[in-house]
Structure formats: structure tokens, C-alpha cells
């Protein structure tokens, strides 16, 4: 086989794998970059640095707590979305699932059911919608885009049917704790997010199911011919996404103290953006929970920046749209450079 280039002077002095002298700043930077998420982490830290200089409010405890609590809901859903996008699929219905399950939980709470039971039914419904998404894709063979576009409309419609446009409230104190409470200095939603992230990470990186997700995303034909139950795994990914969307819904309505049919509208964009920024390729086959977390944090910081910089709400949607375009463009360019 062709000869490997020899590195001059490598026998004499100690160098890291990338040829740098150990201990130097560039060697540290290169080591971080060696991690797939390194690149985006550096960008994120830079963004925070810039923002802390531009606005004195950014690095305050109050603000940061808010930011994290905000993006925690996106991050939770993004755990499921990451799995789905790794299989080269997509789920557009997550925002509608948030709205729909939120309204069902709210309705049950107001109707007098216990907090636990209401939450249980909400989670069950979210899981069911996810399962329906998966079934449409796996058994009928609908492209994920179309299947989830359909459920997106259906779920949102059902939310409207339940509420008839009115907000559902009030909720018991116990319930509100989920969205508004703290454990120590840290908001409850953040704990829930961490729990979901950790479980998601273990699932994706350490279990056979997670492994199969990557295989299916890389080459579904080869996956099937290697004995992988592609249908079952895909079903699982969409079902999990429905489930985590319902978790976010519960947190949301607890935070807002009311449930409305339009809850979660447009969330799919934030979730997908967070996932793609975090390094999950829409082409499938790669992505990590850690990356997605950084992506969600990035989205949170960007939104926060727009608020702190007093950017009009209308412009905020424009900026978020631009961020999504930029993130996906970078992904496409990265894929292209690999294909050489």
C-alpha cells in the first residue's frame, strides 16, 4: 500500500497526535476539535463571550436561569428529533404534539383528575401519536416529511377541537411546580432535561437500538441485509419523539399555568435547528446528544441575544430562519467535502 508520510523531528520531541507540542494553546484547541462536537462548542462559547461583552445582563444568574429553562423544552424534544434525523428522517409534528397533549393534560386537570394520572395520559397520547407517525412511515411507506406533516395538522386540529380556542386553566399548585419550581437554585425543567438527555445519550451511544439507528441512517439496505429489524427501530425513533414532545408539553403548560391550542406552534423549527446545529446531518448516519444539547443551548442564546439587544419580535423570526439556513448550509457543505 502507499507509504505514509513521516513527520520530521517526531522521534526527537514529544508531539500530540496532530503534530503540535503538548501544552500549547493550539494543541488544546486541536484536541477539542478532535471531538466532533468541538467545533460547535467553540462557536457557542464565542457567541456567549461576545454577548456577555455586548450586554451586561447576559451573564446574570436570573438571565442564564431563564435561558436554560427556555431551551430545556427544545432540548428535550430534540433528543427524539436527533434519533429521527440520524435515520435520515424528519418529524414535523412535534410542535403540534406539544399543543395537543398539553391541551389534553390541561383538560383532565381542570376536570379534576389527579396530576399523575393526567400527566400519564398526556405522555401516553404523545407516545401514541409518535407511534402513528412511525406506523405511517414504516407500514404504509409514507415519506417521513409527508407523514409527520399530516399528523402535524391532525394533532393541531384536535387541540383546537378540545379547547374550542379557549385557554384551559387554572391548574393545581402541585402541577405548576413542574414548570415553575426550583430544586435549589436550578429550575425543575432543567432537571427533567438533564434526565432525558442522559437517558437519550445512553440509549443512542450505548445500546444496540441506538447503534442500529446509525446503521439505518447510513445505509438502510445494508441494515436490513445485516439482519437489523429496520421497521422496529424506525418505529421506536418516532414513538420516542412523540413521548418526549409530550414531556415538553407538560413542562410548558405548567410554566404558563394554562393550556392553549396554539402551544408549541413553530417549535419544530427550533428543534430541528438545534439538532442540525449540533452536528446531526439531515443526510443521516451521524449526530450525538451532546451535540444536540450544544445546538439547543446555541438556539437559546441566540433568542436571548435578540431579546437583550431589544430586537423587535418580528425580526426575531427572521433571524431564527437565517440561523436555520446557515446551519443546514454548513451541514450540506460538510457532507459535500466528505464525498470527494
Amino acid at each position, binding site marked *: 500500500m*502507499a507509504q505514509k508520510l513521516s513527520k520530521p523531528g517526531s522521534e526527537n520531541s514529544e508531539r500530540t497526535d496532530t503534530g503540535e507540542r503538548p501544552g500549547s494553546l493550539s494543541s488544546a484547541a486541536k484536541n477539542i476539535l478532535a471531538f466532533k462536537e468541538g467545533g460547535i462548542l467553540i462557536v457557542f462559547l464565542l457567541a456567549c463571550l461576545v454577548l456577555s461583552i455586548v450586554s451586561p445582563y447576559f451573564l446574570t444568574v436570573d438571565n442564564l436561569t431563564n435561558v436554560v429553562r427556555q431551551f430545556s423544552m427544545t432540548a428535550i424534544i430534540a433528543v427524539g428529533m436527533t434519533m429521527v434525523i440520524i435515520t435520515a428522517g424528519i418529524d414535523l409534528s412535534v410542535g403540534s404534539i406539544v399543543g395537543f397533549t398539553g391541551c389534553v393534560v390541561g383538560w383532565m386537570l381542570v376536570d379534576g383528575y389527579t396530576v399523575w394520572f393526567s400527566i400519564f395520559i398526556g405522555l401516553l397520547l404523545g407516545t401514541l401519536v409518535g407511534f402513528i407517525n412511525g406506523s405511517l412511515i414504516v407500514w404504509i411507506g409514507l415519506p417521513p416529511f409527508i407523514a409527520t406533516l399530516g399528523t402535524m395538522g391532525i394533532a393541531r386540529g384536535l387541540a383546537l377541537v378540545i379547547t374550542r380556542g379557549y385557554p384551559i386553566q387554572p391548574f393545581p399548585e402541585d402541577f405548576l411546580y413542574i414548570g415553575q419550581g426550583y430544586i435549589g437554585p436550578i429550575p425543575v425543567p432543567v432537571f427533567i432535561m438533564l434526565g432525558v438527555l442522559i437517558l437519550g445519550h445512553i440509549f443512542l451511544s450505548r445500546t444496540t437500538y441506538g447503534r442500529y439507528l446509525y446503521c439505518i441512517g447510513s445505509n438502510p439496505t*445494508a441494515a*436490513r441485509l445485516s439482519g*437489523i429489524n429496520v421497521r422496529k427501530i424506525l418505529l421506536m425513533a418516532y414513538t420516542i419523539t412523540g413521548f418526549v414532545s409530550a414531556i415538553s408539553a407538560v413542562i410548558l403548560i405548567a410554566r404558563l399555568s394554562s393550556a392553549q391550542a396554539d402551544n408549541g406552534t413553530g417549535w419544530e423549527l427550533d428543534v430541528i435547528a438545534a439538532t442540525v446545529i449540533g452536528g446531526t446531518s439531515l443526510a443521516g448516519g451521524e449526530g450525538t446528544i451532546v451535540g444536540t444539547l450544544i445546538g439547543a443551548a446555541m438556539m437559546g442564546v441566540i433568542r436571548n441575544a435578540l431579546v437583550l439587544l431589544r430586537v423587535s419580535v418580528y425580526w426575531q423570526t427572521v433571524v431564527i430562519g437565517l440561523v436555520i439556513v446557515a446551519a443546514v448550509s454548513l451541514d450540506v457543505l460538510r457532507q459535500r467535502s466528505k464525498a470527494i
Partner: protein
Amino acid sequence: MAEEIILEVRNISKSFPGVRALSNVSLSIKRGEVHALVGENGAGKSTLMKILAGAYTKDSGEIILRGKPVEIESPAHAQSLGIAIIYQEFNLAPHLSAAANIFIGREPRSKFFNFIDNRRIRQDAQAIMSELGVDIDVSRPVRDLNVAQQQSTEIAKALSMNADLIIMDEPTSALAEAEVAVLFDVIRRLKAKGITFIYISHNLEEVFQISDRISVLRDGQLIGTNETAKLDAREVVRMMVGRTLDDMFPKPKVDIGGPLLEVKNLSRRGVIRDVSFTLHRGEILGIAGLLGAGRTELMRCIFGADRITSGEIWMEGKRVDIRSPRDAIAAGIGFVPEDRKQQGLFLSLAMRINASAVILPTLARWGLINRQQEKKLVSESIAALQIKTAGQEQIVRDLSGGNQQKVVLAKWLAIKPKVLILDDPTRGIDVGAKVAIHTLMGEFARQGVGIILISSELPEVLGMSDRIIVMDEGAICGEFSREEATHEKVMLAAAGNRAQREAV
């Protein structure tokens, strides 16, 4: 024809990160010759070719085309210089007609609003096809054409660009024997008109048939160039590999055991008709036949990749119901598909993931993968198959064809299958790796594994099989033992029915 040099490369070097692909390669190509370029995978043939085609830029050295030094900057530039390249995987738009493909990007326009002149496209395309002596309906979409016809379309495309230097990369790897003869006819015809060919191939038999001179590359260097008439296969292989290969087909003597896999009256509507055969322990069963005979389709049915409409499959005396690859794997059947990139590998993932893909469930408890066990198993596989890789985490896409195929084999060996189906396992692989795979096949057979070998290379089937089954039109039409099988007999059996029908 005057002995004019159409292309000369001097001291071409090219490196990629960590790898020196070409070192000071100097070659000259004579006008109107068929110049073969051979070498193992990783020898640098593909790199050199891509430099000529404008897909890569050289690091150093000179290219002198028709007596004038040039810098080839892009594929479009190469085309404008009269250099055309036909890749192993064609560059055709499947839904467009052959004619449209030939003129793609350079469509002649009509005077009417500068619209595309479809009539002229068809006429000109037809003219080129006649020049090639190939009979194709140029209006048919390319996806309806067979591989050989698609290749002719690519050649026509090259001609329409007035290329007089055509580089062909593994042109016959997907062709049947009869189609290869047609291709060679076309090449000779064009040669007579002064067109020069650079012919890259692993198939030495064909290289000796068609080329005037042969250049051998090894490890990025030119080992030597000589006239084909003055060389023989052994010498070329020695130059390619650096040592003599005593036997291309090391088939050990194996005691063949009892029945292992029995297929009874298998049918798949429209594809397979009433196929029955038995595979024994330690036996290598070769399946021969022309392209489209149904060999791969039959194996896919046995492996559960496609549905059976009737028939039974028995393993070790017990009937098994195989409806999916998972069922087949559970029954102890492994399948190395004919297209390793599309069907056998996860190209974007690490070697470790590829190698453990089938055996993964046994490496996990309650779903959680035991990383230690996985790494150990993969190391053992790498060692056993002598896979050349930078490590378990190397992305499989970056491996050479031969090593990629070994990864696919490793994936299946991990589950210790009772039956291993190999579909064209040495296609597009260099000589060294081919022999390695053949040796492995012999090893498995010795261990009692039953092997089914599909191959379009008759020498391979004849050299490795204990028994040969011939298929045509989805049914078995002949069977030969190792002793009685000859090239002619098998070819005749494979083509038998077709010849009779075509003669009518």
C-alpha cells in the same frame, strides 16, 4: 499508424494527508494504442487517472499532451482537451434517453427561440452509435438499457465530445462475456480511427486480449511498461504484487460432509422457477450463468431478502421458514451481497460498527453493548482476515475495495454461519486481495461451512467450486462436478436456451 506519443506524463507526484499516492510516475502513451494500466488497489491507478481527467490536481510533475505542456484544471478543461473518462460507475441520468445523455450540457439548439433541438440530438446520437457499430434505440431511457448498452452510451458521449484519448476504468467488471466481446470490437474499431485508450482493469485475461502495452503501478510508483506481446500473466502479477503468486485459486482438498442446506422447488413469481439443490458441509457450490439468469435473485430468496411464492428451505434436516434476513441469520445463513457499497457496508461509519453489525445482539446485555467485548472481537476479525486499516475507528469509505470486502466478510464470520453465500465476492478487487479471499473460502470450507459462490468470472467458478450449478431464466439448467466442468461446457449450458431462442 505513426508511432506518435499523444500523452506523456513526467515525474507526476500526488499526496493526500498521510499518504503518498503517486511518486514520480512517468509514462508515455502512443497515439492509437490501447494502453493498459494495472496494479493492486492503492497502487495509484485511480489517482493518476483522475489527474488526467481533471478531477484531481497533481502536486508536481508535467503533463505533455500532443507535444505541448498543459495544466489540466478541471474535468471540463480535460474534456475540452479531448480527454474523456468513463468511470466504473457510469455518469448517466437514468430517466433521460441515451441520446439526451450523450449531448447533456451541450445540446444543439434550434433556431426557434433557442430551444433544444431534439430531432438533431436523436439523429446525431444515432450516427455515433452506428459509427460504434452498436445497435441501440437512442430514444429509450437509459435505465431501460442493460449495463453494456449504458457503457456504449458513455463511449458515444466521449466520442461526441471529440475525445481522442479515452480512459476506461474497470470497463468490464459488470459485463457478461458476450458483451465484453462487443466492447472489444468497439475499441478496435475506434483504435483504427486513431483513438487512444487507457484501459484500467484487474482482469488480466482481458488486458492481455485487448491491450498493446501494459504499465504496472505498485505503491504509487511505475514498476515498468512493456509491450503486451512480450509479457505474460505471471510476470505482470509479479510486477504488481512484488512476488509470484503460485495459485490464484487455492482450493484445498476438503472432505465433503452430509447435506446442510436443501432447497426444494423454490419459486418466486416471475423470477425463479422451481429450483431445487442441496449444499453439503464443507462444499463450495458454484453458481454460474449469464447476467439476468436469476442467481442473485435465488440467493436473495434463500436469505429472506425477497419473498418466496412457493417451495421449501431445509437446514440440517429441519424445515425453516425464512421471511426476512433475520430469519435466515437465525438459521445460520450469511450473505455477502454483490454490491458491497450499496448493500454490504455502512460507508460513513467506522470499521468496528460494520464488523459487529450482525453479531451485535450477542455482545449486549439488556440492550447495552459491551464495548470491551466488541473491541476484542473486532480486533480478532481484523487479524484473522488481515484487514489493512488504520484502526477499528477508521471510516470504511476510506478503505480500499479489497479491504472493504474483507470487512463485509468479517461481519459475517463473526456469527460463525453454517452456510455462507458469496455473490461476486472478488469483483473490482486487486489480485492480492482476490487470492486472500479465495484462501479464506478454502479455510471456511475446511471448517465445515457450506459455501455458495456466485461469480461472473468463469475461471473463479471453475477454480474454486466442488460442484457447479448453471442457471438460466430463473431455473437450473445444468450441473457439473469439479472434474467434469470446463469453460466451454459451462458457457454452453448458461447460454444454451438463449442461443436457441435467438436463432429462431
